[in-house]
Every structure is written in structure tokens, then in C-alpha cells.
């Protein structure tokens, strides 16, 4: 089911690059989980937490905060779970510019 996200039209030009970088973040964090590199997981989560809401993607900020926590707690299960959620979210969003 599509999730509609309302984004400031003035950021329209930046969105493709932003979303591409988020896919890259997912890949980095997924590799980090496989390597049990919790520091990278934490930092990636921190980045997502800091950037999502600024572009209008509050859910990305929320996911980022939980991913950061999973890195601090060295919780592999949590990290995998939240990365799956994030991946699904990015696949199901429908952006509307206003």
C-alpha cells in the first residue's frame, strides 16, 4: 500500500539524489550488519536520523534513530529489522509536492 509523503516543492530537484543516497545508506548498513560493524550501523543511523525530517521524510528520521540505537546496543536483530522497514518504506512511498 502506497504511503503518501508531502514534500516542499522547492526541494523537488534534490529528492532524486536524496533517495539514491538513502538506498546507498541501506546497503552500507546491511554490509555492516553482516560484518558486525556496529559503529558503522550507529553512524549510518545517526545520519538518517539527522537528514530525513529536513527533507520532509519524518519516518526516515525515526528509522534512523532506531538504527542508531541498534548500533549502540550492538543489537543485530533490531538492526536487520529496522533496515527491512526502511527498505519497504522507500519502496512504497508516493511523493506529492506542495
Amino acid at each position, binding site marked *: 500500500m502506497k504511503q503518501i509523503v508531502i514534500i516542499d516543492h*522547492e*526541494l523537488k530537484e*534534490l529528492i532524486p539524489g536524496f533517495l539514491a543516497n538513502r538506498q546507498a545508506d541501506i546497503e552500507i548498513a546491511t554490509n555492516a550488519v553482516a560484518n558486525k560493524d556496529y559503529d558503522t550501523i550507529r553512524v549510518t543511523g545517526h545520519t538518517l536520523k539527522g537528514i530525513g525530517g529536513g527533507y520532509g521524510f519524518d519516518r526516515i528520521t525515526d528509522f534512523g534513530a532506531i538504527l542508531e540505537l541498534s548500533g549502540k546496543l550492538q543489537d543485530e536483530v533490531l538492526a536487520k529489522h529496522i533496515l527491512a522497514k526502511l527498505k519497504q518504506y522507500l519502496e512504497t512511498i508516493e511523493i506529492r509536492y506542495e
Partner: protein
Amino acid sequence: MAILIIDDSSDSRLLIKSILVRRGFSDIMTAASAQEVYLLLEEEESKSKLSSIDLILMDVIMPDIDGIEACRYLKSNKYFQDIPIIMVTASTDIETLDRAFVAGAIDYIIKPVNQHELIARVNSALRIKRETDRRKAREAELVQVLEQLEAANRELKRLSSLDGLTGIANRRHFDEIYEIEWRRAVRKGYDLSIVFLDIDFFKLYNDTYGHQVGDECLKRVAGAVAAVLKRPGDSVARYGGEEFVVVLPDTGLEGAQQVAEQIRGAVEALGIPHRASKIAKHVTISVGLCCITPTVEDNPQELVKQADMALYEAKSSGRNCVKARLLASASNITPK
């Protein structure tokens, strides 16, 4: 106004820049790390551009050099010390924020960035920067005015010490010089000599040639006396009317007599015509001097008085001559 964004996240840099540009801030610079800024500081061309920055927005969590360390470094650099730094961070723990303030940040913005909050804090920081710049400009102006005032005061003091006609020291300045030299002579155990000289028949000169010519005569006599004095410590002053006084520190009686005779001869050599003089066809002077090796028990006015009396003696002896006195310490007067 110029704003520098330092953030390792390209998305952050783009977002913040986009918000600022939309709000009319057109001069935006970005850097992906603190190292990038440090490298720019090493280039002369970039230094002036960097020193024109009015505000820095700095991420805290960055690889290698974090924002707090970078803030501390920049604040210790002369190009950045007055530039406000706002930390932009997703970290909300008190310790991080505290460290940021200790490092020199003036404010912080929590990520994700809210554009209204960003603009409000940016405007606030720029207001502070403008006030700081205005204050510095006023201080620089004040310093300049103060320097000008001090220079003017020095010039005023110099002019107030000079005789307006002859350009040599005036009576007031002689009093100051004499007091200093007396004390030095007492302290060091040096000789001190005072020479008074007076233009002979000057009233008649003025009556004959007029006051304007009289003034010229005074100027030439003052010039001749000053020309004779060779040592930096020796000084001449206009004591009054047509009377001049010379202070000769560290000069004994014999030396003072030599100088006095040179002065008398120099004035005579000017050959200024003086048809009303009763002793010569040209301007002459009478000279009286006195010397002492003063101690704390001696009265400085006594030396002046004795030199004046020696001058009177010179006048009484036919003028155009030098008379000397040696003043022994504790008022033992020896005419010579």
C-alpha cells in the same frame, strides 16, 4: 552576508544551502570536512575569502576531525575568532552540547533541520556578527582618534614650551629643564652651570630701528646662541624680553666660561648694525654665568641669582664681556 556550511553529508549541505538561498542568502560556501577548510587556510587566495565569512554552520559528527574539535581550532585562528559558529547536529545529549559551547559555538540547531528554526538562528547570529563588526570598527576609529589626540597633545606641549618669536624654549620650559638638570646634578654629583646673556642697549635698538627689526634681531641672536651649543643636553631659552639663559649640565666653570665666550663672540660676529649702542657699532651682549656642584642642601634659585648677578657685573664692567662666579656648595660665593 557570507555563510560557510561544514558537513560531511552532501544531503545536509544541499538542504541547508537550499533553505538559505530561498531566504535570500546568496553567498553560501560549503565544505565536506574540517580538513578541507584547514587546507584552504593555507592558501593565500582563499584566506581573504574565508576571512569575509560572517557565519559558520558546522556539523558535529564528522569523520577524522569532529565538529567540536574543528570549532575549537577555528576559534583559535585569527581569521575566524570573531565569526560565530552554530553547531548543527542530530546529537541531543547535554554533554555534546556543553562541549560545543566550551569550544566556542554560540548556538546549536538539532537535526533534522527545521527551516524556520534554521533561519531564525542564522538571522540572530548574523545580527550579533554585524554588531561585533560595528563595535570593532568603532574601536578602531577610537584608537585612531586617540592616537591623533595624543599626537596633537604632544605637539601642543611642544609648542607651549616654545617662545613664539624665536622658536627656542620659553621661560616656562626653562624652569622645567632647570629643575630636571638640577636634580640630576645633585643625584650624580655633576657640575651645573647657568649662563645669562642680555643684548646691550636693546631698548635703544628698538627705539632706533623699530620693534619689527628688534624682533628680527632677537631671532638672529637666539639662533646664534643655539648654534654654539653642541651637546644634546645643553639648552637655551628666552628668559624674558632681550634676555636669554643657557643651561649647561655637567659643565664646570672653565667649560662654561669657554661656551659663554663663544656665545658672546658669535653674537658679535653677526655684525648686526646698532648705531645707538654706546660701546660698538653693532649688536653686542653681556654675559654672566655661575657654576655649582649642587647637593641636596643647596637651593637651586641661588645659582640663578648668582648668574644674574654675574650678568649685572658684566653690564657694570662696560658690557660686551663675560663675568663668572663659582658657587661652592652651601653658599660659599667666590667671584672670579
